[in-house]
């Protein structure tokens, strides 16, 4: 497939995503109408009136749209829409794997949450919904039971965008290398030089020292993980975007890949180290064995938590700093709000730049630790070199 065709395909895919809910099909309904009303109200109110809404979410829901409060945590979590406030919200397809009343399994697919609601799904406004049906849990009609919610979410969309960016960039680069640019000649252009230095960094600084002779086997995974995390992290810094890596499910899946690769490639010696640790008295072994087994799971768990927490924290801090403006506005009137604004903006800019750094660092740390864990399991250890006593 030529690069141009690939580009067209990607554009088409992007267009399909952006076309989103309500565009196609018989019941053409604007998913925006309610949100726009709310956006206007939000604009008029100026500052956040969090207390009002959260204290009585149930009453407000349904009749007239409540004012959205600025909730950093809420902003960071996954959702079933892309948030383009003040322009509105783009609802994403809802897909439910359900068990029907007659006992058969099936998929309920809707282009948007709104259309799902038309089909009988009702939002559960009681629980953490912020009074908005989009954030509410969906309760299926009485004759159905949702087994798994396969709905497309905001983070999934941005993970897909990252995937598309990576496919475009790296398959494009691969074609350049196939044409001989970078193979026989020097790499040309900023993109190729930049990506090549990153690829070489992953190979020479991360993979080689940890994996040794098995570098080639695990390098594709390490490269994919590194660039996927990096792309997701950086993508999250754009306005109106979301950070896929600030989702514990996504980081968990990435860590699971590392876990599976670690355990599937484990050498006999690696397992022996876990189930019969050498070099310790027999009495200690019963204590050590559970610790080792626990260690198998804590390492990838830490990987997942670290990435998730780092990527969430940055956004939380930025939003909290911005939130200070409104808090001060509430406490001391508009003077307070305007007064604290420059400080808030300056600090959030600083955190934003820090996040740029963290995006790189966390991609590096995840890849580095993955390589380390895999390396510990798959590398052929030379005990003669480790233990100098046996040489004599």
């Amino acid at each position, binding site marked *: 497939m030529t690069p141009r065709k690939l580009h067209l395909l990607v554009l088409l895919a992007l267009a399909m995503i952006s076309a989103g809910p309500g565009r196609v099909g018989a019941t053409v309904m604007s998913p925006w109408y309610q949100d726009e009303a709310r956006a206007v109200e939000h604009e008029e109110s100026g500052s956040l009136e969090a207390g009002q809404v959260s204290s009585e979410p149930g009453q407000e829901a349904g009749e007239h749209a409540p004012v959205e409060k600025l909730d950093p945590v809420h902003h960071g979590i996954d959702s079933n829409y892309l948030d383009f406030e003040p322009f509105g919200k783009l609802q994403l397809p809802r897909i439910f794997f359900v068990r029907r009343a007659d006992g058969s399994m099936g998929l309920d697919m809707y282009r948007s949450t709104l259309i799902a609601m038309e089909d009988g799904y009702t939002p559960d406004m009681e629980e953490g919904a912020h009074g908005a049906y989009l954030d509410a849990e969906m*309760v299926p009609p009485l004759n159905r039971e*949702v087994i798994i919610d396969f709905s497309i979410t905001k983070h999934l969309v941005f993970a897909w965008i990252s995937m598309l960016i990576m496919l475009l960039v*790296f398959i494009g680069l691969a074609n350049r290398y196939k044409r001989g640019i970078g193979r026989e000649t020097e790499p040309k252009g900023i993109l190729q030089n930049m990506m090549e230095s990153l690829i070489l960094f992953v190979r020479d600084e991360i993979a080689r020292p940890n994996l040794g002779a098995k570098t080639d086997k695990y390098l594709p995974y390490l490269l994919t993980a590194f660039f996927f995390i990096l792309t997701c992290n950086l993508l999250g810094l754009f306005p109106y975007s979301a950070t896929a890596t600030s989702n*514990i499910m996504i980081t968990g899946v990435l860590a699971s890949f590392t876990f599976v690769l670690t355990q599937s490639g484990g050498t006999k010696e690696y397992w022996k180290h876990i189930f019969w640790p050498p070099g310790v008295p027999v009495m200690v072994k019963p204590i050590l064995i559970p610790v080792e087994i626990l260690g198998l799971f804590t390492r990838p768990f830490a990987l997942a938590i670290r990435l998730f927490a780092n990527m969430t924290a940055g956004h939380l801090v930025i939003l909290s700093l911005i939130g200070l403006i409104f808090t001060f506005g509430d406490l001391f009137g508009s003077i307070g709000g305007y007064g604290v604004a420059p400080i808030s903006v300056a600090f959030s800019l600083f955190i934003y730049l820090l996040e740029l750094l963290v995006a790189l660092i966390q991609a590096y740390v995840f890849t580095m630790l993955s390589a380390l864990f895999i390396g510990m399991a798959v590398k052929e250890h030379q005990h003669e070199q480790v233990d100098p006593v046996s040489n004599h």
Partner: protein
Amino acid sequence: MTMVIAAGLLEPNVGLIVWISITFLALLLLLRRFAWGPITSALSAREAGIKESLEQAERALSEAKEIQVENTRARREAGASAQRVLREARDGAERLRSVEIDKTKDKILHMQEMARQEIEREKDSALDSLRMEVADLAITAAEKILKESLDKGRQQKIVADFLGDLSKN
């Protein structure tokens, strides 16, 4: 049992786990097949090429150095041999000249000798002829003086004896 998404950072979402697993696996397989393979092999090939070139350059450099050393030695040798040839030529010329001079000297000596001998011979013959002439003159004179008193044989003998006494003195 409902697994529908709700607020909360740690809310589990099985659907998302499935989606993202498929996504990441697809990404991994696609990139491994279409991107990392070609890229890493190209990079390895280029590195091998660069290594090769460097080694070649290294070899060429050491060869060049060797050649240079060789050249320097050859030049020095050539210089030395040129000096030697020059010296030899000068010596030869010197020798040749001295030989030539000796030869010339000998020749001159020889010629001088020849000339002296010639002169000697000429002188002798001149003396002889002078002697003859003198004898003849004496004879003629004596003849004239002693025309009648002595016969020619006797006169001649007396003159010859006399001349013999002269040459002895």
